[in-house]
Structure formats: structure tokens, C-alpha cells
């Protein structure tokens, strides 16, 4: 299949902290999907965190420092792509705002924001969806993560891409736009609240009788998989890109 002309560039893959540490398989799945779509993929060695924990935790100054680092690491690529709506929302929405009064960086922040993409949206809108060749004969429920959903409008892309997976049946849960209670440091700062929100969400997911829970943000997925494991629910959890890349043949998150 020949590639359209706009897909000849190089993509910088943003390795989110949680993915890097807790689930490298997501990174490999993301790279594979991008390469299948015709992009060259590079993973800058010097990248660290996007700075969201600092920004949400009140430390604007640290967030700015990390924003500048990330911009310098990625601005040379044709696009920055991340398998996370949450980190991407920070790059796209918060960087320009954080650096708007900095004459040296405001333009660079906006330029990077303009070419930064959440992976599934990238495949859905820039092409590559047609190359998905994956089989996953299971009933799955998709969890919409809040930052991706509300700040980036990620709603159609994952569903459209999952519809291409052979054998996959997508079931929608009730209250699908309600937060799962992860919330970054909220999950450990207010554990009792986080637990209750997790339990509410998990009950909605289990009510669908799906075998598998999918989602686009590893934070929410670690939280939900951890809660599902704690209550011994026989449900597997994967990141959406693992399924799309055909790399969901191993144990789910939190399983062996």
C-alpha cells in the first residue's frame, strides 16, 4: 500500500514516565503502529517528564523548567506523539499558557503544541488506521480518561480504531464520562476518596460483563487494574495501543 505524501517524516515518541517504568510494551506498540503508518520513529534519550505532576501540584516554576526541556528535546521532529491523553494535554494546552510571558519560549511552546498528538488521534486523523491488522476476539469495554476526553476531545478515535480489530466487540459502560478517581497525586493524597471513585467506576465496568478493560492513559489503567486485582475480578486490562498493535497477547496490566 503506497503511503500518502504527508507521511514521510520523523516522529518523536514521547515516552511517558509511567509507560517507561511500568509498561514498556505500550511504547513498543506505539512505535509499531507509527512505523506501520509510514513514519520513522525516534525516542530522544534525554527526555524526562512533561511536568504535569509539578503543574497540577502547584509548582509552576518546576513545570516551566520541564516544559522548556521537553520543547528542546522534541521541536526538531515533524511531530511529537504520545500514547497518553493526559501528558499530551499538558503539552498542548498547558505549555503555551505556562510560557506565554516568556518571549524566548512562547513561540516555541506554541509550535510544539501545534504538532503534538495523542497517538490514537494521530492515527485516526493523519492516517494509518487502515494499516491496523490485529485480532482480539474478546468483549471489551473502553474507559475514557478525563484529560484526553475533555481537553483533547478524544472520543471517536479510539472507538473508530478499535472497530478495525478483528473479533473485538466493544461494549459501552454506564457513566462512561465519569472520572475513575486516579487524578495523579490525588490517588495517594486522598486515598479514601480515590478508592471510592475507583470502586464506583469498577462496578460500572464489571456490569458490562466485558472480559477486557481498555483505556488510553496508563495512570487510570494502573489504578483500575490495581482495584480490579484487589477485588479479584476476572478482568484483564490493557492499553488500547497494545490491542491495536497486536501486542496484547501477554499478561494484562497487574497480571502474570
Amino acid at each position, binding site marked *: 500500500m503506497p503511503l500518502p505524501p504527508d507521511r514521510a517524516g520523523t516522529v518523536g515518541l514521547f515516552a511517558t514516565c509511567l509507560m517507561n517504568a511500568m509498561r514498556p510494551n505500550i511504547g513498543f506498540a506505539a512505535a509499531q503502529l507509527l512505523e506501520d503508518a509510514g513514519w520513522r520513529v525516534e525516542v530522544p*534519550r534525554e527526555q524526562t517528564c512533561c511536568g504535569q505532576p509539578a503543574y497540577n501540584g502547584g509548582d509552576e516554576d518546576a513545570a516551566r523548567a520541564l516544559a522548556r526541556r521537553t520543547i528542546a528535546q522534541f521541536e526538531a521532529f515533524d511531530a511529537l506523539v504520545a500514547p497518553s491523553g493526559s501528558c499530551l494535554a499538558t503539552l498542548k494546552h498547558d505549555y503555551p499558557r505556562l510560557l506565554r510571558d516568556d518571549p524566548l519560549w512562547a513561540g516555541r511552546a506554541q509550535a510544539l503544541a501545534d504538532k503534538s498528538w495523542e497517538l490514537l488521534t494521530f492515527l485516526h486523523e493523519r492516517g494509518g488506521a487502515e494499516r491496523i491488522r490485529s485480532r482480539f476476539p474478546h468483549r471489551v469495554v473502553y474507559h475514557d480518561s478525563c484529560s484526553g476526553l475533555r481537553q483533547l476531545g478524544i472520543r471517536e478515535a479510539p472507538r473508530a480504531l478499535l472497530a478495525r480489530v478483528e473479533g473485538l466487540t466493544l461494549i459501552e459502560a454506564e457513566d462512561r464520562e465519569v*472520572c475513575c478517581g486516579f487524578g495523579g497525586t*490525588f*490517588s495517594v493524597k486522598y486515598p*479514601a476518596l480515590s478508592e471510592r471513585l475507583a470502586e464506583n467506576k469498577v462496578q460500572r465496568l464489571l456490569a458490562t460483563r466485558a472480559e477486557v478493560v481498555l483505556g488510553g492513559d496508563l495512570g487510570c489503567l494502573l*489504578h483500575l487494574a490495581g482495584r480490579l*486485582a484487589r477485588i479479584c475480578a476476572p478482568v484483564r486490562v490493557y492499553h488500547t495501543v497494545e490491542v491495536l498493535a497486536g501486542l496484547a497477547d501477554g499478561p494484562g496490566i497487574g497480571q502474570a
Partner: protein
Amino acid sequence: MQIRTREFVPRATFALHDPNLQRALANAAGGFIGKRAKAVAEVPEFEALREAARVRKDEILAELDLWLERYEERVRAVGGQVHWARDAEEARAIIRALCARAGAKTVAKGKSMVSEEIGLNEALATDGLEVIETDLGEYIVQLAKEPPSHIIAPAVHKTKEQVAELFAEHHGTTPEPTVPGLVTEAREQLRCQFFRTDVGITGANFLIAETGASVIVTNEGNGDLTQTLARVHIVTAGIEKVVPTLEDATLFLRLLARSATGQDSETYTTYSMGPRRADDPDGPQEYHVVLVDNGRSRMLGGPWREMLRCIRCGACMNHCPVYGAIGGHAYGWVYPGPMGSVLTPLFVGLDTAYDLPNACTLNGRCGEVCPVKIPLPDLIREVRHAQQRDGLHPPAEQRAKALWRRAAERPALYHGLERLAVRLLATLGQNGRIRRLPGLSAWTDARDLPAPAGRTFLELWHAKGRDQ
């Protein structure tokens, strides 16, 4: 109202385990969310209305002084009086003096969040006045000696069975836990009270500058009786309530009812304007408006300005998962939920209300439903930034954040620490998960921690010699 924001964590924990509260909250959330969604779906231009309201409110706030003066002029012209209160204390003093001058013994009140904000009921009680709350929800919480737990549904934390018991205890009736039965019972009790009140105090949803009218919306009609039957009518309102024209009020009213209760409009929209005129069949002899600043004009000039657009509909709390889990009392002051997580720290102190903006997942649903498009998650985050500037985050957290930042700015160190952590966690994992992790019990008390495989993505990727 007593400030109990410092007790947020214990009160929230208690709330999570209060079965009556949980039942009441589950019922309420289902109703509010579904009704709003339905009402909004019936107005195709709803999004355009939100945008128009945002723009209009900002325009009004930019000329707030002008509209307030115009309003005062009009109120005077129709025979009313306007009193300016810089803070809660001044507001209380003004109202107490008005009641004293009227020789009042009994005061009827329509629902007013500003009166909660300024602690009016306690002040009037000190003067020996009998205060009768006439809004059904307020009446219930007054009987129960509790503060309201929601800005439009003060007794939303109670089940109808609890209300029936409360009524039985106070009215000497047999408990009858049906909603119509309870409403009738409260109506019968309140009806006779209206006729013996000296002063009626209401809030205001809007103050209209071109006419000098104040507008309140209610579903029980108690506002009308409160203000028409008393000899003296006192309106209490925050200064941000003023709008230039009747047409402006109409725009906000369309959004208010749908966002608050999912109605096209509330059952009663009551306009009051000055005292009784010679040919009026009823109405008060005196008409006063107490305009309360209490920190609002300071908000105008700073990062919290957008919060002054708030029209107090309660949609943010109705859609907040945290509010839905713990109810309003846990927040510990007048304004709960997302709007309260911004406002309360500004009123009572960033320190005193530390937990409110922090006990939020920033999921953004509040901002999505706000009828005047207040970017609530951004403002909540902004409060956290202000707390950081004042050094109010817990010392251990501040140290951890500072260390983390130093590492995150040094890739070799950051990745080295990640590799170390991942190896350690991998050895602790059993069947792919860690059930208990001392030092991270805040996580593992509630859920397992999925165990990593032992190598980071970056080391695996670069070990394959993929690039750079």
C-alpha cells in the same frame, strides 16, 4: 457559619461511610444529572447561550462599578434604600440595625447563600429574633440544626425517611415519608408563620440596573410570601449579582434553571422593586438592599476574576464525583464542590481551606457543565499554585516535589532512578502485582500496584540500538 474546612479529611471519610448520606447522594446525583442533560438537549443553542453568557458577564464585570451605581440610583428612585457592606461584619450590622429599627421579633427568610456567607442567622438569633427559614430545604436543615450541604438543595444530604422523622419530632405528627406528604406538612407549618413576620429577608439571583428590580427564582413560592407579607423587605446580595438590563437577566435565567434543576424555568421567578406603592394591594412598607462585597472587589483585579461570573446554579457540584461521594458538609463551609474549592479558600484562607482545591482529580466535568464557562479546573489548579507560593503544601510533599524536580531536570539521574525503582518493584511483584508496599500504603491500602517487568522502555528501546 462555623468554618470547619480543616476537618475535611475526617469529615469526608465519615461521609463515605454514612449509609443515609450515601443513599441520599445517589438519588440526588441521578436526578440532577439526568434532568440537566435532558433540558440542555432540548435547547439546540445551549452552547451558544453559554458563550453569550460568558461574554456578557465579562463585559458587566468590566463595568461593575458603573452598573452598581446605576442600580442604586434606580432602587432609590422607586423608594428603596441601598446599603453597602464592605465585609460580613458590616453586612450583619446593617441588617441587625434594620431589624431593630423595625422593632422586629420575627424574621422570615428566603434561601440566600450570601446570608450563610455572612453568618446572618446566628447574628439575628443573638439579638433574640426568631428566624424562620421558608425554603423547604433550608427549613429542614434549620430544624436539624445543620448548615446547608448544597447551594440550591440545602437538605440534599437527607433521605425522605430522615426528613419525615425530623418533622414528626418537631411537628408532633406521624412520620409520612412521601415527598408530597412532606411538602404539604411543611407548607401547613410555614403558612401561618408568614403572617406574623415583621421582616422578610431574601437573596437575589440577579439585580437589574435599568429598573432597580431584584429577581429571585424558587420552586415553592416561599420567596413571594417572604417579601410581600412582611413590613420590611431586605434583599441581600453579592455585588456580582447586578446585570444591566431585563434582557440580560433573561439570558442568565434560561441557563440557570436548566443547569440547576433541569427545568425550563423555575416555578416562580419573582421580581421585587421598591416598597408598596399607594395603589399596590400588598407589599412591604420598607425596601432595603444590602450589597455585600466581602472580598469580591478584590477578586475583580486578580486571577480569580472569572469566578465572579458564577450564577450559583450548583451544576458543578452535581457533576463532581468527589462531591457525589461525600456531599457538601465535608467541605466545611458555605460553598461546597468545585465552585467552593475555588471560593472557600479565598474567603476563609488558602491555609484554612487547604484540602478543598487539592481533593480534586481535575477531571474537568465541572467546567464542562458550567453555564457561564468558568474554567473551574484551571482556577482550582491556580489555588494550588497560590498555596505553593505561600508554602502551604505539606512539608514532606514539598521536599518530595523539590527532589523530584531536581531529578527530572537531569535525564541520566532520572532514568537511573527509574531503572532502580523498576527493578526493585519487579522483585516485589507476585503474580504481576504488589499487594502491600510499605511507604506507598496510600496506594496499596486501596488497590494492588501492578508490578513492572524490570526494564524501562528507554533502556529496552536503546538496547536494541534503535536510534541515537
